[in-house]
């Protein structure tokens, strides 16, 4: 459909301007980043390294991390969620003396969520900025830059690319700290099929509506096939054009198939329209939505009468991290650094950047910090059964003492499989009209 | 059947736009080798008739025969190929092309007009271009336009544009030349020259059909006149007879110029 894609494309370039974050570490290297944003200061990045005022270890020796994400366009929120967390971590590392005495620099590459733009943005990161590690990109633009990554041996950790396209790709240079949509899709089907998880009933007749955008379509096959595998019936699988003004016809077609529950994979905007149209059309069944809608912003778009009782799926926090209070700590840190709550992919970013930087430390320990040596260390720093660590500083000191580490993250244990994928538990959420409450967890082992 | 002495025969042609009938059962002939004048008050349907004959418009009913062949429904370029050339009341020159290009455009059967011909047969194209160039030069000289040959037609005066249009028609080399007010807006000296040229063309054997408002011009230069009024033919015949026709006089005086 022309509409959504056009919007994606029209999304301009440039960068999200994280004014609140700008130039913070310049203030002398004191602990966590504070939003001191002196206007006109080193606001932003090309190399927004806090060029450590204490004129130290030559800036040529900087290690650079490129953040290759959409900062503009329809998916600009991805960049806006990931970048501040990355910056928060990097600032802290630099404040504590950097990696192997070297500063870590951050460079943004805006993919605009389009293929051409991601290629030139990646070209610039790889060849001009000469980054050592890339954080990103998103599902859509991955394919365009895959060759460039592999040829140059750039280690990549994506906190945001759930696409099934990456299921059998990666493991050498490409890793992700977000579970694949194929896992997420199975989790959705499992949760719908079993009262144990959804707290309502063993739904057996599900309608599936999927917007015609790459990040959404990725869920379609996994949900459909696993729901049937779990013994349910998909009453109708319906692709719809994203970004339309009205969805009455789509909804009546869906309702014609009499589903007990509709699994809706869509943007918050379209989902709000679709759920309203269904309400008007007299639909009385339930809804199941994905991570994109299982958030406060979505609830603000629809009336409580409609959203009351709907179900959603998010990645569950690592139970150990919850117990140890690390999630709370993380939320507080992000709030302190950015002034707002961590968004979607923030925790994945935390884990990804920690693993990446720990791999740098490990590489430095072994000899040289190069793209190759970082890539080689990424799977090992997160691999059991070595000493468990949960933060960068903990891991860094362990490595400095010569111990091998196993990073345990916020989203899960982050053990990469042969394709560089992780599995993580999921949480089933239910809306009570104004907010989401967790009603069950679904461990990865159940899928 | 058809009278081969006539180049053009129009029979019962009707053309309506919306509710208004612009041409209403008009019938007339243009005799071979004649200079025929088509006259009538404003709104009589003369220009519409030109458009009908040249295929720009299709009549609602009626017949238009060119040398006995019915051409109703044929597209303009086919009618042009069949030997009809025309000019427009407001000249439609190719403003963004040079005068020379304007003329060369009209030459028939150019190999280089096909994309493949232009790419694959450069020798033939060059030869034809040379020939066309010569004819263009002759036409330029004939119309005394050679001093502006390489200027853009955009820069020409109204009179020059009329000449250029005539030149294009000559390059097409048609049997029937239809001119829509060739002398309107042309200064008297140029008009004389234009008329001279038209007579020369007629002497070469071409048939001319003119729309003109200047009655004197028509009477002095035409050997056959067709008078249209309210979309149909009011009268036709030699100028002398037309001049005396009461209906014509009435139409012009009463019908309102």
């Amino acid at each position, binding site marked *: 459909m022309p509409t959504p894609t056009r919007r994606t494309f029209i999304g301009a370039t440039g960068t999200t301007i994280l004014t609140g974050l700008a130039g913070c570490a310049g203030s002398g290297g004191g602990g966590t980043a504070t939003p001191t944003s002196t206007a006109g200061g080193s606001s932003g990045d090309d190399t927004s390294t806090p060029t450590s005022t204490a004129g130290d270890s030559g800036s040529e020796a900087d290690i650079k991390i490129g953040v290759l994400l959409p900062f503009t366009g329809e998916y600009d929120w991805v960049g806006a969620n990931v970048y501040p967390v990355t910056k928060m971590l990097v600032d802290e590392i630099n404040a504590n003396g950097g990696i192997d005495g070297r500063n870590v620099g951050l460079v943004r590459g805006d993919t605009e969520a389009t293929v051409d733009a991601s290629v030139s943005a990646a070209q610039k990161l790889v060849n001009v900025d000469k980054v050592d590690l890339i954080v990103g990109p998103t599902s859509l633009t991955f394919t365009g830059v895959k060759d460039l990554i592999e040829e140059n041996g750039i280690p990549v950790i994506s906190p945001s690319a759930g696409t099934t396209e990456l299921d059998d790709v990666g493991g050498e240079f490409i890793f992700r700290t977000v579970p694949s949509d194929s896992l997420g899709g199975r989790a959705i089907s499992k949760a719908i099929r079993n009262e144990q998880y959804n707290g309502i009933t063993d739904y057996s007749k599900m309608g599936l509506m999927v917007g*015609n955008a790459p990040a959404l379509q990725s869920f379609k096959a996994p949900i459909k096939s696993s729901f049937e595998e779990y013994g349910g019936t998909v009453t109708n699988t319906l692709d719809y054009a994203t970004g339309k*003004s009205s969805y009455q016809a789509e909804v009546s077609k869906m309702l014609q198939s009499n589903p007990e529950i509709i699994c809706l994979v869509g943007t918050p905007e379209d989902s709000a*329209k679709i759920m309203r149209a269904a309400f008007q059309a007299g639909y009385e069944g339930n809804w199941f939505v994905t991570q994109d809608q299982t958030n406060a912003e979505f609830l603000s778009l629809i*009336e409580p009468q409609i959203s009351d009782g709907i179900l959603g799926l998010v990645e569950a926090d690592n139970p150990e991290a919850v117990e140890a209070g690390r999630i709370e700590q993380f939320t507080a840190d992000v709030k302190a650094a950015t002034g707002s709550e961590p968004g979607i992919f923030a925790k994945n970013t935390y884990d990804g950047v920690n693993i990446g930087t720990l791999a740098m430390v490990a590489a430095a320990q072994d000899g040289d910090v190069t793209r190759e040596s970082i890539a080689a260390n990424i799977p090992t720093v997160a691999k059991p059964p070595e000493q468990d660590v949960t933060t960068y500083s903990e891991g860094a000191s362990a490595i400095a003492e010569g111990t091998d580490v196993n990073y345990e993250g916020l989203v899960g244990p982050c053990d990469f499989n042969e394709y560089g994928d992780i599995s993580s538990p999921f949480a089933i959420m239910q809306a009570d009209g104004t907010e989401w409450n967790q009603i069950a967890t679904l461990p990865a082992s159940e899928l | 059947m058809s009278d081969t002495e006539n180049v053009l025969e129009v029979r019962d042609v009707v053309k309506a736009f919306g509710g208004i009938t612009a041409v209403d059962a008009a019938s007339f002939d243009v005799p071979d080798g004649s200079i025929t004048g088509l006259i009538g008050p404003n709104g009589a349907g003369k220009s519409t008739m030109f458009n009908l004959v040249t295929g720009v418009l299709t009549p609602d009913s009626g017949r238009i025969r060119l040398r006995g062949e019915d051409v109703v429904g044929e597209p303009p370029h086919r009618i042009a190929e069949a030997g009809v050339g025309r000019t427009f009341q407001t000249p439609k020159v190719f403003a963004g092309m040079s005068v020379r290009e304007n003329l060369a455009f009209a030459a028939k059967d150019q190999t280089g007009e096909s994309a493949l011909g232009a790419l694959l047969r450069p020798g033939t194209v060059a030869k034809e271009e040379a020939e066309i160039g010569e004819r263009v030069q002759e036409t330029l000289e004939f119309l005394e336009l050679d001093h502006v040959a390489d200027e853009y037609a955009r820069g020409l005066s109204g009179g020059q544009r009329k000449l250029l249009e005539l030149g294009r028609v000559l390059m097409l080399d048609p049997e029937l030349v239809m001119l829509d007010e060739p002398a309107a807006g042309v200064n008297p000296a140029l008009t004389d020259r234009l008329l001279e040229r038209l007579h020369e063309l007629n002497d070469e054997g071409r048939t001319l059909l003119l729309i003109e408002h200047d009655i004197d011009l028509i009477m002095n230069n035409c050997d056959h006149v067709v008078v249209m009024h309210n979309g149909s033919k009011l009268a036709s015949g030699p100028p002398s007879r037309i001049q005396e026709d009461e209906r014509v006089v009435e139409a012009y005086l009463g019908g309102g110029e």
Partner: protein
Amino acid sequence: MADFVGVVQTLLYGLINGSVIAVGAVGLTLSYGVTRFINFAYGELLTLGAYTALLLVGMGLGLPVAAVVAVLVIGVGGVLVARVFYDPLSDRGALPLLITSIGVAFVLRNLVRAAAGTEARQLPVPLMRPWVVAGLRLNPVDAGVMIAAVVAMLSIHLLLQRTMLGKKMRATSGNEQLARVAGIDTDAVVRRTWLISSVAGAVAGVLLAVQFPPFRPTMGWDFLIVVFSATLLGGIGKPYGAMVGALVVGVAMSVGTRYVATEYTMAYAFAILVLVLLFKPEGIAGGEL
């Protein structure tokens, strides 16, 4: 029987959507009738209408008041846009105006985006259960929107047929030079046409925003294609044709989405358009304004 109700319901949805399209299409076609160029920036008037209403609501105005004020503001704004961008080119023919309007569309859309951000927004419209009659559902908001659309079109009809301005607009549309000779101040007519056309655009934008929340800065541009289809279908420059065209497009999109394939939505509007262009390029209605 149930299926019969379904068909009628689908037609009804089509007509409701068509009525909003109609308001936009009439506005577009009016400006074409007088200015003779297809305005690619027209969709932005819809967006501006919706966002202005949003802004005013945010300032504390009630929705009905905000909607009326927004429509008037954008009406005047549309005249200003025309003054700044189109008037200086008015003697250069249609093509430069058309291309200019594409540039203007870029400018307006991205200014809205720069100011309002990309996230979805909505006007405070209460959620209502539909009325159900014989199995057919009609939502009060939809009914209201439809009535508003009909009122807007009736006003335009009366304006064209019963007022001096309407007569002048029709004259200017028919033949601008003749109109000028007849003593009509065609520049003033063009200005007023811009006003009416912009008002219609803003009305369509507000109706769309009310009926189908939430919306984004691209709403008008996305809707433009539909409006184009309706306008051309009706024969551009012909308001009554645009109204009919809009209803046809609305119904076609609704029926096509429901009964043919859901993923092709706009395509139904386009397809009809192309068929009309192929077989009846002059559109389905006759006559000038």
